């Protein structure tokens, strides 16, 4: 199964239920050749389910998958020609690192010299040459994960599926491997679908991010889109908008309006579609606050805690009505200090009130 190029991988309404409970609902997505897609969402949201359906390890309850014009959703995994890095590695315990990596090549009856060459290259790629003759049980978790990555990419598959491949690595190695994966994706011209629950990882790697919750896609967009313009309160929450306030909206135009609660008055020029007057959810990112009133937006607070976080401070502030705000600032504030914070109207995101998030968006 040598690398044949294709134009797009198209998922149409792919759904999966496990006895009544819906693990994945109506996933539709068109992935272009060479794209890097991240499936992002909290634990149990159906990311692995989605990946397993694409891989063919799990049959979908409904929907279809096309590789260009060809429908592939009834093909067994071995005939789809995809690569996969499993969440728990799934290395073959009875084979050495070298033979684990060579497994797919041997199945394809690749010539011995060629196998050796490609396995050596893959070993070098994940920096495991010194461990080539060890068995998986003799490796650390991180090393096993690297074997799993090497085993998948050594075949240069047309699509690589990765299920949280970096979740067991320490911060430094994770950053390094993240760079390696991105580089690999580029140099080998791979199409990658990458599952993670780490928004930072998703944004640093992906061309497009698919945010999921309870089996339902909440938003598909570039990392900037998802970060700056979350589609709903759930995505905002997940993308680090730690301040989610329940307030009341009075619109002045389709995109702007005044929002109020007992003691807070703000203006926003960033209303999500379908937001109507009345109860709304307001989302503000901690680092969008300024330590002074900004264009009429001001919130009077008393600082209740300050945490040093390296390049800046994580501050908790209590508003006059008791609401807690989370703020990141480079300014050094003191506990008990009275501070007025501001925020630009375009960085005050307003969503229809958060109900069950799977029905929003």
């Amino acid at each position: 199964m040598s690398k044949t190029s294709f134009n797009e991988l198209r998922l149409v309404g792919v759904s999966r239920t496990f006895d009544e409970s819906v693990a994945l609902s109506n996933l539709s997505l068109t992935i272009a050749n060479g794209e890097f897609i991240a499936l992002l969402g909290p634990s149990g949201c159906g990311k692995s389910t989605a990946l397993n359906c694409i891989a063919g390890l799990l049959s979908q309850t409904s929907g279809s998958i096309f590789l260009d014009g060809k429908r592939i959703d009834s093909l067994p995994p071995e005939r789809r020609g995809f690569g996969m890095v499993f969440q728990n590695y799934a290395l073959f315990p009875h084979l050495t690192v070298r033979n684990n990596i060579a497994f797919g090549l041997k199945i394809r009856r690749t010539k011995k010299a060629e196998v050796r060459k490609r396995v050596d290259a893959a070993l070098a790629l994940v920096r495991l040459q010194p461990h080539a003759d060890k068995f998986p049980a003799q490796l650390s978790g991180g090393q096993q994960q690297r074997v799993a990555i090497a085993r998948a990419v050594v075949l240069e598959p047309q699509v690589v599926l990765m299920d949280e491949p970096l979740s067991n690595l320490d911060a430094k190695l994770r950053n390094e491997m993240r760079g390696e994966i991105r580089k690999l994706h580029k140099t080998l011209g791979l199409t990658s679908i990458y599952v993670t629950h780490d928004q930072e990882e998703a944004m640093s790697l992906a061309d497009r991010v698919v945010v999921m919750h309870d089996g339902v896609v909440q938003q598909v967009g570039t990392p900037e889109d998802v970060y700056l313009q979350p589609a709903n309160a759930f995505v905002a929450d997940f993308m680090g908008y730690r301040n989610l306030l329940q307030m009341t909206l009075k619109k002045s135009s389709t995109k702007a309006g005044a929002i109020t609660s007992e003691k807070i008055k703000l203006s926003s020029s960033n209303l999500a579609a379908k937001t109507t007057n009345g109860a709304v959810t307001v989302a503000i990112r901690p680092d969008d606050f300024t330590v002074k009133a900004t264009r009429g937006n001001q919130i009077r607070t008393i600082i209740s805690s300050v945490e040093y976080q390296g390049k800046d401070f994580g501050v908790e502030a209590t508003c006059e009505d008791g609401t807690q705000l989370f703020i990141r600032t480079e300014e050094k504030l003191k506990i008990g200090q009275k501070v007025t914070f501001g925020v630009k109207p375009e960085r005050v995101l307003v969503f229809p009130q958060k109900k069950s998030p799977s029905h929003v968006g």
Partner: protein
Amino acid sequence: MSAKTQSREFSSTRRFWLKEHGIDSTLLLIVPALLAMLVFFVYPTVYGTILSFHPANKAGFLENYKTFFGDPYMRKSIFNTFRIALPVSLVNVCLAVPVAVKMRHRVKGQRAINTILIIPISLGTVLIAEGLYAYLSPNGWFNRTLMAAHIIHAPLQMLHNFWGVMISLIISGFPFAFLLTLSYISGINPKMEEAASILGAGPIQRFRFVTLPLLAPGLAITFCLNFVLAFSVFPSANLLGNPSGDSHVLAVAATDVISQSYDYSMASAISLITAVCEITVVVLVFAIRSRFYTGSTTGGKG
């Protein structure tokens, strides 16, 4: 540094050493089994061994063994036993693997199938032998069905020869082989096969390169247990076989000496020969087994 801290350090390193070598209070758990072994296994074995070197006719201490190996009829019982036990264990293991592979996944009517497969264990060899005696006899169901279907024209001779013994041992040994194999197979992480299929391996390659190697050590043990069971075959050889001909196995030879001449010393010698044969096969199989991967079959530390 005071003497006290020094001694504490010493005792903690010693405790560490003991623990590293598996010596701690959990060792007490094996005491009951150890006692039972001593009373019911070690003592009779030692006693039997000594007895076998004290022939009834007060001849030299190797007299029993000389008699056994000097008598072609007796000597052949070793060959007869192997000729039954080896193929039976092999067939049982080979039959158990595909069934266990299939039954590992959820199958419709799994309970019913499991029950049918396992019933022979609870029946016991004598009952099976008697049932087969009626079933395989020249006018039993087996031959009548084959004749009615015009597959054969004269009844097949299935009794009082090799085949009757073989079939009865397969029926009584298969459930053991199946249950053991099933438990070994269930211990293999299904992700292994998934990973192999992603890497392009079809069902046969997955079995050949992933499941079988991980299963092999378990199969070796299954084979040994079946072999040992079949090697001490007695009721089926007596009832279904030809105990004075090619079913003259070691167990029959031993009981013959006792029932004909009350020669417990000779019987002990035959038992000892039986044991040596069994141990040889078991050791051989384990030697082969040690060349396979024998570690965890769950894969990964995740």
